[in-house]
């Protein structure tokens, strides 16, 4: 059916593209012959300069053309080789056995890359039209459908406080139309409608069958009998909540289903005196979605780690100023870097040296020459595991926010940034009002739930770059990088207003509201060099005290 609607122009374009693509793939063999010849020439004494230059040019063209024909794997490997060659040529590094071996390895990857286009032009078009992918930073969209207007409205309002984009409808007949126009990421549906007791379930079932896009849905109902639950399971509902709904549990589920918590990219530090290799590895890692930074002077590693904590370090074994093993030991002198994986990269294949490297603080070994197919999955897997293990160390168990130690460290690190380049940042210190009374009246479990609600609320309302920590029992700290105190104040003010409207519920179906007090400061308050983070935290604390003294449910700016 799609072809009929497709523009005749687009169809002609696609046909021509497909033809050209086939021609290109057929011509690859000839290109490789040319490339091999240039490479042979480069390996002779007289032909080195000319050969390398020609090779670089040929690889450069291959990168561009292959990419334009959607042969993304060839393009990536060719680009990696291009970067290596360019840096080799420009930095006039010695053209030694290691370099030759590395170029051979990359050439092999280029030639072995699959020649099936990863996104054939035809389907590429279809993808663009059907999927309305949610951009990073956009709010997640929730569609609420309940014939009880009171419930629909109150749920809608609550969810909006938590930062979702919400549409509420009261009739099943509006469902299809709204799905098409609103593109919800998740649907929350009642079961009982005028059309029938289980009409909601039937409607969702139908939606899954006819729609090409898979929207997860959650059932919300006063029904508690097993028949309804069974039907819900058969209709493949993702969750089943009974009214009145526990907003925190509902939120957890929605968050899980809309995958709002994306994994932040891994920070990888690449340390090698071989500039060409550093460029190559950082390119490959960045291309795969990580954030890689290369340094060719190992002596600057501690400054670099102070500035930006890496998730993993790639370390060459042999460098002029010091060996990789020595650097690893220096890193391990610091407790806070104990859990960062160190992977040695080396051409060394002596078992003894590898053994010693691991004994002295290294975690693993990668052999040169570097290959994209090995480097990327290896680093990713190691960094991922390290992050899971490290998470236990830096996060608070109840709220999953950063713990006291880590958030303090982060503030100190942010202070380093400020001392280096004067990028203003703010701190907000907040404390739940009358928390003891919540615990006394409703019990500690409810108290814990309130803290979790606040944590969820802060996480969904603040920016991805803001760091949130649980500082004490009911005390939280927010670190706002690149933000002045007036902006931070505005943000927290809005959060306070909205959070104070969130309805917290208990098992006994009591409802209550919670507020907090806060103090805000930014680092421009002190006009001295080499400030300490702890001084700033103290000032924020004093502002928090002011807020409490002035009646609570407010945010005060620290005086400077």
């Amino acid at each position: 059916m799609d072809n009929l609607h497709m523009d005749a122009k687009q169809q002609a374009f696609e046909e021509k593209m497909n033809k050209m693509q086939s021609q290109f793939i057929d011509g690859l063999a000839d290109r490789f012959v040319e490339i091999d010849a240039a490479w042979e020439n480069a390996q002779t004494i007289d032909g080195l300069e000319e050969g390398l230059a020609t090779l670089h040019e040929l690889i450069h063209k291959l990168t561009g053309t292959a990419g334009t024909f959607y042969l993304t794997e060839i393009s990536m490997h060719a680009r990696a080789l291009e970067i290596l060659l360019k840096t080799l040529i420009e930095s006039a590094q010695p053209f030694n056995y290691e370099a030759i071996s590395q170029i051979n390895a990359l050439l092999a990857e280029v030639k072995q890359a699959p020649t099936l286009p990863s996104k054939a032009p035809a389907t590429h078009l279809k993808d663009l039209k059907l999927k309305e992918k949610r951009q990073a930073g956009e709010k997640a969209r929730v569609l609420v459908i309940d014939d009880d207007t009171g419930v629909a409205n109150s749920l809608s309002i609550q969810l909006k406080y938590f930062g979702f984009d919400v549409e509420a409808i009261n009739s099943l007949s509006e469902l299809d139309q709204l799905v098409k126009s609103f593109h919800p990421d998740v649907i929350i549906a009642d079961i009982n409608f005028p059309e029938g007791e289980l009409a909601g379930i039937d409607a969702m079932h139908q939606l899954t069958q006819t729609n090409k896009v898979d929207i997860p849905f959650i059932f919300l109902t006063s029904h508690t009998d097993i028949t309804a639950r069974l039907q819900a399971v058969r209709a493949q509902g993702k969750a089943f909540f009974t009214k009145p709904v526990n907003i925190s549990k509902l939120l957890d589920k929605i968050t899980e289903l809309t995958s709002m918590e994306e994994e932040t990219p891994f920070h990888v530090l690449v340390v090698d005196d071989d500039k060409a290799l550093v460029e190559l590895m950082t390119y490959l890692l960045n291309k795969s979605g990580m954030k890689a930074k290369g340094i060719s002077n190992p002596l600057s590693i501690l400054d670099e780690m102070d500035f930006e904590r890496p998730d993993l370090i790639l370390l060459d074994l042999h460098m002029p100023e010091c060996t990789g093993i020595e650097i690893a030991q220096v890193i391990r002198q610091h407790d806070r870097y104990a859990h960062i994986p160190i992977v040695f990269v080396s051409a060394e294949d002596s078992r003894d040296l590898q053994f010693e490297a691991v004994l002295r603080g290294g975690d693993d070994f990668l052999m040169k020459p570097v290959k994209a197919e090995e480097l990327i999955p290896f680093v990713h897997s190691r960094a991922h595991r390290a992050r899971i293990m490290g998470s236990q160390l830096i996060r608070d168990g109840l709220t999953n926010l950063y713990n006291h130690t880590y958030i303090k460290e982060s503030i100190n690190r942010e202070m380093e940034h400020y001392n280096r380049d004067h990028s203003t940042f703010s701190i907000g210190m907040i404390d739940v009002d009358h928390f003891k009374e919540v615990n006394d009246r409703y019990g500690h479990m409810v108290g814990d739930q309130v803290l979790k609600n606040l944590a969820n609320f802060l996480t969904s309302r603040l920016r991805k770059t803001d760091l949130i920590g649980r500082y004490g029992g009911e005390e939280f700290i927010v670190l706002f990088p690149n933000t002045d105190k007036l902006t931070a104040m505005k943000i927290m003010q809005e959060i306070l207003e909205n959070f104070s409207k969130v309805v917290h519920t208990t098992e006994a179906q009591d409802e209550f509201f919670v507020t907090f007090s806060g103090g805000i400061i930014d680092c421009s308050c002190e006009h001295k060099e080499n400030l300490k983070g702890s001084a700033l935290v103290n000032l924020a604390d004093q502002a928090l005290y002011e807020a409490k003294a002035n009646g609570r449910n407010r945010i005060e700016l620290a005086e400077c």
Partner: protein
Amino acid sequence: MATLSKILYAEDEPDIQAIAQMSLEMMGGYELKLCNNGREAVESAVAFAPDVILLDVMMPEMDGPTALKNLREMPELNDVPIIFMTAKVQTQEVEDYKALGAVDVIAKPFDPMTLSDTVKSLWQRAVY
């Protein structure tokens, strides 16, 4: 009000020339002049009077940056924005190209489906 109708593109790789032609002429409906290197671009620009000029960076005989320098010295082309087509799109490198006189860069490999739109929006930003 100025409209975008003529594009001059300097690129030495025949495959990329063909794709660009399909993309800009077939999809975009623009009139396209293809040049094989910087020298040809410099020689034919004034006569063709394009609304925008696209330059590849690495070309034989005269490369992109040199061609740009020459083109920017021609008063007849003062209002014509010039865009580099390059694989290098690190922020610093983009700034370097802009310092030479380019209004922006388009990343290579480019997506033939969207090339026309990209050229149009960069042109609009430069001209308005």
